[in-house]
């Protein structure tokens, strides 16, 4: 593990307070994000892990205010970006943040580029919009975005259509789009999950490089604790729409406090922390529209007792920035 110094400034770049995003569906209210709070410092890589369906993507989309319509709605909380609450902005003001201050890389490189426009068009689009670049200058900037992601021969590649590129290349293009306007925060929502191992390692190295070069903050969503160990400074573990544990990476690996985190880490093969999916823990995650009473993890928790089933656990500080929501913390 490399040492990863982070400048912990006085105010975090991004601070999320008690964020709630619900889906109003035929079957009931799905509380995909239910009281999530975290902050991301300047130049920090913040990890978000958890099983499929726990609300990671919806958290990310909420930060950009792009929750799937019409069912989804951000019903509460604050998202402070450099002290301004994004949830209070008008739609057109919010658009000035998207792609310029906050960018996103989506999971599937095969579907996240528009098939009928050239790669160059798609990279140039946010640059033209936010930086008002035109003509030669615009094209140069698009090319240098491709260069940043180490795409060979960028000037020619600008004229390509997505289907002419491999998956790995396309994901670099998506990265180039996200980074073209030099944003402060990059959200990488399982940006490497769909790539094969070698390409994935290259991509991570690239992100690391850009992070160091530009002092970029990254919110890194993944299933993979190996990647967390390699990339992140701090991690939040999410379960059923809530963050259940938050700690620095070191602290989390050395002293996991929440039974769910312990189960996740136990499910990871030792030595090599890399796994495809965190699917190997007992039982199914709960349906988000009919959560169990008390602690959401109680039906699957080996430490669960009658109190856990009855009442929601409190947030308990373990040590400094390390906390977990649990009645019966695992003491390391």
């Amino acid at each position, binding site marked *: 593990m490399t040492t990863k110094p982070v400048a912990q400034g006085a105010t975090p770049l991004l601070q999320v307070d008690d964020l709630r995003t619900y889906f109003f569906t035929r079957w009931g209210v799905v509380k995909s994000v239910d009281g999530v709070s975290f902050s991301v410092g300047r130049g920090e890589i913040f990890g978000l892990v958890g099983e499929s369906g726990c609300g990671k993507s919806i958290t990310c989309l909420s930060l950009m205010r792009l929750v799937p319509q*019409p069912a989804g709605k951000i019903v509460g909380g604050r998202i402070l970006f450099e002290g301004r609450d994004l949830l209070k902005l008008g739609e057109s003001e919010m*658009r000035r943040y998207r792609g310029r201050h906050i960018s996103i890389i989506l999971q*599937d490189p095969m579907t996240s580029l528009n098939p*009928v426009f050239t790669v160059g068009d798609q990279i140039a689009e*946010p640059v033209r919009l936010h930086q008002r670049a035109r003509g030669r200058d615009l094209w140069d900037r698009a090319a240098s975005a491709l260069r940043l992601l180490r795409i060979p021969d960028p000037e020619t590649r600008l004229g390509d259509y997505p*289907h002419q590129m491999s998956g790995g290349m396309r994901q670099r293009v998506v990265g180039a789009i996200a980074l073209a306007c030099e944003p402060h925060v990059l959200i990488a929502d399982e940006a490497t999950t769909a790539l094969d191992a070698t390409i994935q390692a290259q991509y991570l190295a690239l992100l690391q490089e850009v992070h160091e070069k530009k002092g970029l903050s990254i919110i890194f969503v993944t299933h993979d604790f190996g990647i967390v160990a390699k990339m992140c400074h701090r991690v939040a573990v999410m379960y059923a729409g809530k963050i259940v544990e938050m700690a620095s990476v070191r602290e989390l690996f050395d002293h996991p406090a929440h039974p769910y985190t312990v189960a996740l880490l136990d499910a990871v093969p030792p030595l090599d922390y890399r796994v495809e999916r965190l699917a190997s823990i007992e039982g199914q995650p709960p349906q988000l529209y009919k959560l169990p009473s008390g602690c959401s993890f109680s039906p699957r928790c080996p430490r669960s007792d009658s109190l856990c089933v009855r009442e929601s656990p409190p947030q308990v500080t373990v040590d400094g920035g390390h906390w977990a929501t649990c009645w019966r913390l695992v003491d390391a």
Partner: protein
Amino acid sequence: MQRYILFRLVQAGATLLAVSLVVFILARLTGNPLDLLMPIDSTPEQYAQESQRLGLDKPLYVQFGRFLVNSVQADLGKSIRTGRPVLELLRQRFPNTMKLGLSAMALALAIAFPLGILAAVRRGSFLDGAARTTAVFGQSLPSFWVGILLLSVFAGTLHLLPAGGAGGLKHYLLPTVTLALTGFMLSGVVRLLRSSMLDVLDSEYVKLARAKGLSENVVVWKHALKNALIPVVTFVGFYFALLLGGASVVVETVFAWPGVGRLAYEAVMWRDYPVVQAVVLLLATLLVAANLVVDILYAYLDPRVRYR
């Protein structure tokens, strides 16, 4: 690509050949035109003479062979009823059909495009419901009935518009509206565009387009529409040819519009074989041509096809 074009041309030729054969046989199944044309008191000799003059006494395969050979040389024969060259009839009538068809298509698309797109963008809204109702309604109304209704109101009761025939702009109004509102063009495009737009709006690349900070208008009209149009183009090309063929026969007959549809109607009534065959062949050629045009448009819209 060249092989593909060659293949398509051969395919088109085969289609037209098959159509010729079918229409040739079907026309003859309706009976002998001389039964209708000859004076009631003609002698069997006169009958045989006329039959010989028209070549109707030859075996069917000889007649068909001659028809094919002549057609390839752009000689479509003469009308049995009027004796005028069929080619001349078509040249005179076809522009009228085309003008009516084009104006009906333009009207149908002018209504269908915004309706289909807005229905998708505001899914579940009043407008969405209205669009879908309109689509089902239009498609289930028979065009002859709508035509007659419009005629009796605007030409009959109100005396606002001419009752039939071709002429100025006023003559276009009723047949155009009838053709545009009924049939599958309008309703099909509304439904197809709505559903393909809904798919596209749900896609990851639209999500990414929004994440760039683009306005909803740019997302819908640039990123989504061009993709959503791809399936619609096939439909429009195909139904335009059908609109010219099927619907025009009915509408042209109701409005006494001097196009090929009405020509076909009259020709069938009189068992005027050469004219029937020519009109059907013309419409079949159009259908085949429409498919070719669709393929070219496809390549323009979808780079994945262009580079194959």
